[in-house]
């Protein structure tokens, strides 16, 4: 655990990012498998971290997870400051309507999907990728949750509402049952093809082609009904981290593949609720210690590691995030089952 370092992406990381984008599943990752686009993502992130202005909302931040022993990058994660910044951000909202007839002796809850802009302007957690060799350990916790400590520390740059999209289920051929039942009717093309055509365009562009009236889930084929809110296997790990944080997964789904879009107020998230500011001490308190995320949250030198800490942080741990005795760091417990 002591060899993992989360830090902002640097220019020199391009080759590693290209490798990770190629390894991540095609079409379901938010990492473009394209060197020029990845270079642009790095540049945008560096600019966002460097800017001392308050948020304009268009910023995207990209973090990488480094195995300092192996000397290579093993994952990445990102933040988009404001969903749909230049335009509307579309989701389907689950709503339930009771249809009842006394004469027919029926009263039933009908599930409908409403096209909405609810999450426009929310801060989006994006671009999660972790090398499969690291999936078993706590790396995913550091990679995903350190973003929340960054957002907490720079709240004026972000929304109070945090959301994250997860890839929906597809079959072996990359076809999405939800897309086949909904999007295909309005686009007349299959899902991988639509992704290529749409790639990079704003979602609003596509959503203009979708029906504005709610979709009655009962009218969808069984496979599409079943796919609704289901995760693609590659999304399970990052999704479980967010679920443990306290994100709500029942309200929104992606308008294209039906995958769950989670959201929550920042302040309600476990890492944020349990986060505390601690001082780096030459002679730390000898009391009980527990595994935690430890972050230096200063914008220009943000980074985070996993370490055992007590009431305060010792100098050796602090050195791993570039801090010295007297500096303040942010700590939040690694274990998710710790009661609030």
């Amino acid at each position, binding site marked *: 655990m002591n060899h993992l370092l989360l830090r902002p992406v640097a220019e020199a990381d391009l080759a590693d990012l290209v490798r990770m984008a190629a390894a991540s599943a095609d079409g379901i990752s938010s990492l473009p498998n394209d060197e020029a686009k990845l270079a642009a993502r790095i540049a945008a992130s560096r600019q966002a971290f460097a800017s001392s202005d308050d948020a304009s909302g268009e910023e995207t931040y990209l973090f990488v997870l480094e195995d300092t022993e192996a000397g290579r990058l093993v994952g990445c994660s990102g933040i988009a400051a404001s969903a749909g910044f230049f335009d509307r951000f579309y989701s389907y909202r689950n709503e339930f309507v009771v249809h009842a007839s006394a004469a*027919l002796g029926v009263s039933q809850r009908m599930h409908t999907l409403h096209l909405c802009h609810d999450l426009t302007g929310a801060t989006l957690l994006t671009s999660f990728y972790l090398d499969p060799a690291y999936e078993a350990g706590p790396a995913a916790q550091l990679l995903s949750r350190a973003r929340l400590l960054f957002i907490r520390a720079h709240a004026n740059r972000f929304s109070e509402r945090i959301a994250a999209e997860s890839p929906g289920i597809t079959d072996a051929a990359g076809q999405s049952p939800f897309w086949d039942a909904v999007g295909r*009717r*309005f686009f007349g093309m299959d899902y991988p093809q639509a992704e290529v055509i749409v790639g990079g365009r704003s979602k609003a562009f596509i959503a203009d*082609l979708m029906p504005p009236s709610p979709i009655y889930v009962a009218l969808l084929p069984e496979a599409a009904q079943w796919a609704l809110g289901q995760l693609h296997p590659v999304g399970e790990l990052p999704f479980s981290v967010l679920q443990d944080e306290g994100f709500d997964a029942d309200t929104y789904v992606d308008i294209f593949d039906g995958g769950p879009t989670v959201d929550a107020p920042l302040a309600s998230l476990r890492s944020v609720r349990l986060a505390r500011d601690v001082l780096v001490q030459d002679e730390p308190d000898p009391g009980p210690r527990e595994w935690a995320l430890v972050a230096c949250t200063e914008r220009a030198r943000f980074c985070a590691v996993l370490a055992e800490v007590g009431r305060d942080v010792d100098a050796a741990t602090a050195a791993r995030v570039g801090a010295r005795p007297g500096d303040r760091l942010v700590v939040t417990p690694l274990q998710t089952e710790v009661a609030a």
Partner: protein
Amino acid sequence: MSRVQITPEGTALRLALPGNTASLRLVPRLGLKLPRYHFRLGRVVHAAAELDLFRVQTTLLLGNDHTGRAELTELRCAADLPADAQTAALGELIAAAQALLQDRPADFGDALVAELPGWRDAEGRSPFWQALGARFYAGDPAEAEARLGPDWRSHLAALLPRQTVYLSFLGAEAEARLLDVPERWAPARAALQAAGFHPPEHARIDDGGPVLAWPLPPR
């Protein structure tokens, strides 16, 4: 001089030909007690020039558009008449109903409406019902109609989608059969069309049968 026999039946009138070879009911002011529902057919275009996409979709919207109009129901004809003769016989009755409406629009309503049954397969299954109604009412529509009479559709409406439904969601068969009638109803449909009823813009909510309307022509 018309040979149509007119008999009051409550607030309605029974119109029949001698020997009862053909008959129908003219019911004034439909849907003023128990609301009556039909699907209105609409058209929506989703276009995106950049993607070279231009897609026309047919929509169904539940409503009470025909409320207050007069209705022709129970269109019947001796089954042993050839189809042409059935059309002609019903045509006489429909013309008589149109004359009554023109004489007494305040009593009957400003248009005539006729609801015809939707297409069914050899086993009596309606593809429209399978694709739409059956998803919202698990019971047997024939049983419900036997129990509640034609009113059953007013109760069914409470269970159906209130918001616009895109027809393409119902599948190719239901889409193809929408507004079709069973073969034995073809003469009735032909008679209505010959009498000046407009091409259907509404469908029956259970089986997708056509609802034809004839607005009173301006005087």
